């Protein structure tokens, strides 16, 4: 990835290292949410605080996308899945592993940034993904 990359959308993740997803925590009910929300989707509370979510979690569901979906300008195949974070949150994310047979339920995953495609000026548009965590 080029360090001159631009995030696919501002406010989704911090670049780190390690990169972290930017979520929010509701001051009233304590639940976390991603992406950040001004109003808690669970209790409709208006007092939410921005938080940086844990950089790693456990794999909960996964598949691979084999055909480019409409509007997508990157390459296929790529992984797509759900990772459980210690905050009690399940997050939908791209996965770096595109072969479902190489992943296991509960496997440790770590957030990384990945290039998605090049923009009109040749810069990498950068998104977030979870990758199998390196061994201990």
């Amino acid at each position, binding site marked *: 990835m080029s360090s001159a990359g631009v995030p696919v959308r501002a406010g989704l993740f911090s670049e780190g290292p390690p990169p972290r997803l930017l979520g929010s925590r509701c001051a009233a009910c304590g639940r976390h949410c991603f992406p950040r929300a001004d109003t808690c989707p669970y209790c409709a509370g208006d007092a939410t605080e921005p938080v940086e979510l844990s950089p790693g979690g456990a794999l909960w569901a996964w598949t691979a996308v084999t055909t480019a*979906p*409409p509007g997508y300008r990157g390459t296929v195949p790529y992984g797509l899945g759900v990772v459980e974070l210690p905050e009690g949150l399940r997050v939908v994310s*791209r996965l770096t592993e595109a072969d479902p047979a190489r992943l296991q339920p509960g496997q440790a995953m770590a957030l990384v940034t990945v290039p998605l495609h090049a923009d009109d000026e040749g810069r990498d548009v950068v998104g977030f993904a979870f990758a199998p965590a390196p061994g201990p």
Partner: protein
Amino acid sequence: MTEAVDVAGVGIHRFGRFEDRTVTDLGVAAVRGALAEAGVAPGGFQAAFCGTAYGGVASGHKVLTRLGMTGMPIVDVEAGCASGAAALMLGAGAIRGGACDTVLVFGIEKMPKGMIRSSFFEPWQEDAGLSATPAYFALRAQRLMRTSGVTKDHLAAVVVKNRRQGVTNPHAMFRAEVDAAAVLASRVVAEPLHLWMLCSPNEGAAAVVLTRAGHGTGPPGVRLRSAVVRSHVPGAVLSESTPMSGLVDEDTPAPSTLAAVAAYEEAGVGPGELDVVECQDTDAARELLSYEELGLCEPGGSAALLDEGATAVGGRLPVNPSGGLLSKGEPLGASALGQIVELVHQLRGDAPNQVPGARVALAHTVGRGANASAVVLSR
């Protein structure tokens, strides 16, 4: 005071691909059929509700303009895969509330080909590859396989069942049987889902004339016992609301369950009293998940219900005797009312793939939004 509501007539334009016809043409055909069956002439209904997701501005008005039947309120309704059922709910409500004696409800659609592009997703989600709708179906399928003992063979068996049941349906897009080996040999779209395990977005229209009970002059009435639409409650990360995050709690009720529970209560029937069901089989796993979410079996019991043969025509609770969306294809705005057309024929006893003696029927859709519908009909 609420009034009972009857289905006085139904009409359908078959589901498929029709290069030479506009979405308005499809709607005109279905509406003509329903009005003719109900014996309703111009001026004979007081409101019209049209379900469509991709039809564009004033889609319903264009259909009724072609028929010289305007002047009354015409309301176009978008509720994703439940659009037609949402139109039905509004039409039934207009009669129950006493505002109307007769209401026209129809659904029309001409879907773009291939993977559905939905304005639901933000541009950044498309850029990040997160708009791959079948991949979300696949994630739900994988979870069902882990929690309910469902295997890929079960997924193939759902396709085999529904494609077999669609053979006699003149309104279906696919009318050839397939075997499990061929289903499993079709290409993987998103593991564990193969191409033939996914329904095809397509084109079609369906229409229903509702009347206050006792007011109709058409064929012997089928009673609309309840028509319910529900959205999601937050928490389930793989909900049809397609959130980017959810909670680790497992007890968030699914929108389909919310709709079904309300529809059963309003109709005064339980799932054990159903004789025939049309459910959302967007993909093969979705049908099995629907068994569980609609209370057709216990949670975790969908594979056993399928294995037992209960949900095939000839079993104790046939599901998708029309062939389902896997045979018919899915024109979003029309699909929920296509189910009603099938079930009305089942309850009249004149369906092509008749479930003998069917008296109580359930129709179910669920999709983006989230939107889920449950409709109970009886004779």
